[in-house]
């Protein structure tokens, strides 16, 4: 959640700038946002009216690029490179970081081979540098590199912008979680009631036995 706090101000800044940027200026803004080293959230910018106006104009490729940074991965970029603006190195790095975030959302253990294939990285050293310096230090993921098993164990991954249709899935998961928590709570309460009634029973039984013993003692 630190990532969200860090980038909260940045998002506000870019959204503010977007209110007065049109056409060429909006394209510049998109380039600046997709190059900024600490920004990993683009939904707010995508929702700005002036940015949405780029659709269908000569600058619509930039709008597509912003959408790619909001939801896509490096592989998506490669598959559509001819229709998108060329990326400069900071943008390339960011898109690779976003790709790691997406992969970390889908699995808890990421094999190096998968990561190298998805990120177009040819050696382990370069991959580990990216994971350590550009992903873990920037807080977008937390985890452990297991060199022996050649995999990255994910403990935490900051959330990426939601893709259309994901919201329902998330709501369903939360409802499911709430439901199982409620059931657990009910179970615990039943168990407490059961334990209380059992201890009451044991206490009563013990008293009966003592009363009987007392009677016997008196009768003897």
């Amino acid at each position, binding site marked *: 959640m630190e990532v*969200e706090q860090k980038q909260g101000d940045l998002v506000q800044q870019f959204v503010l700038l977007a209110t007065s940027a049109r056409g060429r200026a909006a394209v510049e803004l998109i380039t600046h946002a997709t190059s900024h080293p600490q920004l990993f*959230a683009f939904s707010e910018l995508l929702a700005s009216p002036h940015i949405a106006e780029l659709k269908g104009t000569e600058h619509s490729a930039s709008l597509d690029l912003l959408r790619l940074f909001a939801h896509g991965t490096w592989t998506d970029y490669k598959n559509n490179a001819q229709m998108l603006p060329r990326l400069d190195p900071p943008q390339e790095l960011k898109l690779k970081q976003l790709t790691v975030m997406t992969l970390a959302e889908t699995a808890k253990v990421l094999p190096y081979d998968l990561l190298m294939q998805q990120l177009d990285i040819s050696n382990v050293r370069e991959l580990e540098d990216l994971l350590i310096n550009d992903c873990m230090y920037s807080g977008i993921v937390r985890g452990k590199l297991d060199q022996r098993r050649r995999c990255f164990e994910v403990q935490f991954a900051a959330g990426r912008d939601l893709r259309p249709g994901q919201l329902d899935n998330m709501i369903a998961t939360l409802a499911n979680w709430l439901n199982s928590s409620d059931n657990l709570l009910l179970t615990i309460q039943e168990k407490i009631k059961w334990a209380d009634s059992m201890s009451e029973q044991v206490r009563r039984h013990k008293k009966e036995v003592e009363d009987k013993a007392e009677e016997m003692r008196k009768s003897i």
Partner: protein
Amino acid sequence: EHSLLRQISSLVRRLPAIDSPKFQDDFLMEYNDTLLMTYLATITKC
């Protein structure tokens, strides 16, 4: 609010927290150990 959605998305994606065969084995072993101890305590009591 997009920021909140991203945070919820990050939290929800961590579920299930741990779901590996090894965890299941360990968990069941702990479970059985504790059941065994409860059984022993009950026998001791009797």
